[in-house]
């Protein structure tokens, strides 16, 4: 049955990449938040599966954090935020969706090509998971780069963090305390960004980060 547990682990990691692509594809804000919730859900499933096959119960805690915190709380908070701020519901992408997805493909290929030789001697479960996790991280960064709307940048950031989480659980022996501290740092970051969003919005009547550029010196 060893083969099947491999397969399911890969499957879930692959599903995470797939959901990352769905994020790149999505141009509506509310739908994007749903996809973010799905992303976290897949992550928590993946972590729970790792907990099962590695036989390390503390990973269940991580999975629970991912589920409760990232899959439910954060999307809900973001949704409220979007609603209260009355943000325009379509996201303006800097680059077209097709091109972004093409770039995403290239990033996946790159991360596979980089990680697989490097981790050749590692645990076979971890190997491809780490490669896929790196692609999730890169796609998250890509999303932050190619979207104008600050909310979608937050979403990109959250998905990036999910990727880090996936990589961390794939490698055995990650202490719980590190994970909890990561989770809290993300929470702090989320709160800070949230506050900033409101401040930006109050000042400039928009969350389009392009608007901020106008106020930088010399560019007027």
């Amino acid at each position, binding site marked *: 049955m060893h083969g099947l547990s491999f397969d399911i682990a890969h499957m879930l990691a692959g599903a995470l990449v797939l959901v990352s692509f769905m994020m790149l594809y999505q141009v509506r804000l509310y739908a994007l938040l749903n996809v973010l919730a799905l992303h976290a859900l897949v992550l928590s499933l993946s972590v729970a599966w790792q907990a099962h096959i590695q036989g390390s119960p503390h990973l269940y805690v991580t999975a629970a954090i991912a589920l409760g915190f990232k899959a439910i709380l954060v999307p809900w908070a973001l949704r409220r935020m979007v609603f209260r701020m009355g943000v325009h519901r379509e996201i303006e992408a800097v680059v*077209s969706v097709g091109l972004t997805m093409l770039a995403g493909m290239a990033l996946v*290929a790159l991360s596979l*090509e980089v990680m697989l030789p490097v981790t050749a001697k590692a645990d076979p479960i971890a190997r491809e998971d780490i490669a896929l996790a790196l692609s999730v991280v890169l796609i998250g960064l890509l999303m932050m780069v190619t979207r104008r709307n600050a909310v979608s940048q937050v979403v990109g950031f959250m998905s990036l963090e999910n990727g880090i989480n996936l990589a961390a659980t794939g490698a055995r022996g990650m202490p719980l305390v590190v994970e909890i501290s990561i989770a809290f740092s993300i929470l702090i970051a989320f709160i800070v960004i949230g506050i900033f969003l409101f401040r930006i919005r109050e000042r400039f009547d928009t969350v389009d980060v392009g608007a901020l550029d106008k106020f930088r010196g010399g560019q007027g």
Partner: protein
Amino acid sequence: METVLIAILCLLLLGMIAAVTARMPIGRVLTYGGCLIVCLVILGTGLTSIAGPIQRLTLPLGLPGSGTHLRLDALASFFLVLTGLGGAGASLFAIGYGRHEEEPARVLPFYPVFLAGMNLVILADDAFTFLFAWELMSISSWALVMAQHREDGNAHAAFVYMLMAAFSGMTLLLAFGLLAGPSGNYAFDAIRAVSPSNGLASAALLLALIGTGAKAGLVPLHVWLPLAHPAAPSHVSALMSGVMTKIAIYGFVRIVFDLLPTPPWWFATIVLVLGGITAVLGVLHAMLERDMKRLLAFSTVENIGIVFVALGLALAFKANAFTTGVTLALTGAFFHALNHTVFKSLLFFGAGAVLNATGHRDLERLGGLIHRMPRTAVAVLVGCIAISALPPLNGFASEWLIFQAILLRPELPQWGPKLALPVDGALLALAAALAAACFVRAFGIAFLGRPRSPAAEQARETDIWSQAAMLIFAGLCLLGGILPGVVIDFLAPVLQALSGARIAPQVSDAWLTVAPITASRSSYNGLLVFLFISGSAVLTVAVIHRFASSGLRRAPPWDCGFPDPNPATQYTAASFDQPIRRVYGAVVFRTREKVDMPSPGDTRAASIAKTSHDTIWELAYAPIARLILAVATVLNLMQHLTIRRYLGFVFAALVILLVSLTLWQ
């Protein structure tokens, strides 16, 4: 061997005769008829000698001390088949088509010489003869491009062509120079015997790719092709697109697969990447083109890309000593080259026939020709289906083989080919789908619908010679498609010579099914598919007409209740490609559309303006042209100096030379 040599001499002789008789009515029939016979002889020789032994001949001509080496092996025989076939078709077509030539003296003498040059390239067995024949081919085709030099843009096309041809010849010269080694023996046998150092071989490989790629139309060296091919008379366009590009492929295969040792994998990656880009870029250009002949020329670029992808596959497999893959990929490449010769010639004939009948090459001025040129329409339709890689015609069979080669997926250890292979698969599929779109548009706008100009309304069916040429080639498209096994078996000796292995014989199967590896892995039976489709279609027609209804009434078009008798209301070529332009053009060509729609009550006419950029021209060629212009402006100053200063220059040059000589020692 001797037969081909005599045939080439006959062609040169025909050229001379044509120079004298060009202005007489008999000149046309004499030249083209002669070329037809000679090409058929060459075709026959190629067909018979492909499985025969290697023949050699050394003539006491050419460079002193080395002579002219000629050789006829399996590879050369196959390409002789291409030149023979393409040449015979073009000559047959031209017997009728040439009647409309305004200045036959500018075409007739060069046409046989062009054919002779192409055949001589194939026979050449030393670098000098090869380059001589290469340049003969270039110069004679240049003269043919210049034949209608009074038309707009043709002189420019010829100029660009000349530059690129010179560039291509120069890189090949350098490549051979590197390969000849210290002994300076330019015979191919001597080049094969030398094993060059890695750096030298790499440089030679790249130079060969550039030199032959420039002639074949590989992106980014393709810019001349869509200018020059359409500028020539249509039968010459057919030869240039259908045959001359194959000669360039021959040159590439000869140098890379035969003369040089196994190339490294990075070279395979370059070929794969360039091939994939060429295929997609070519067909996108073709899709957005209004001029029928330019459209066909761009589609040639696409097909060259497909062939280069297959060659790149073969190289990647060869670098990993995976012989099954090499044979399959090379078979796909050669098969596609053959198919392209057939259907591209056919389509250029069709374009020529339409051009003669209507005087237009612009799709927007055609339409409804299926009613007035029924036989041409049938032949062109077959060509369009074949080039769109649809079963059961030949274009599909060769692309199917190439896909099968990609699917072999050996354990490639290098990252380059490993990533390039699947991406090329996607690019090939994209190119095939876009080609189908492109030829729906070309055929649909030119031959279907309602006439868009008075000339199209009064078109007449073309002459009997042209029809014969087109219908024969259409028949060949079908034959190659339903009997691919015959072609694959025919190619076996070439592969045996190049890779030391062959694909299992195909014709032995009772049902003529093609199964390149094993039947459980993949198989295709063009004949059965064709029979099934035609059988069930005929059956359905019979059943319905017998048992259901067979009545037919004619009425004005329905068009959802808004029929408009004005032909301007139908879809045009530009409106047909608008969705594709919007999806791909915005990225590749930076196309922008600007619609100016007056508000209600405003009597101003609405307008739409579209802009697009040829990215490659702007990025690669325009800077070079600007640089040359700038340098020329500076150098221009030197044309107004006194004689004393000129002497001063000469003196300074001499002194510098002497100083550098002393420093060197």
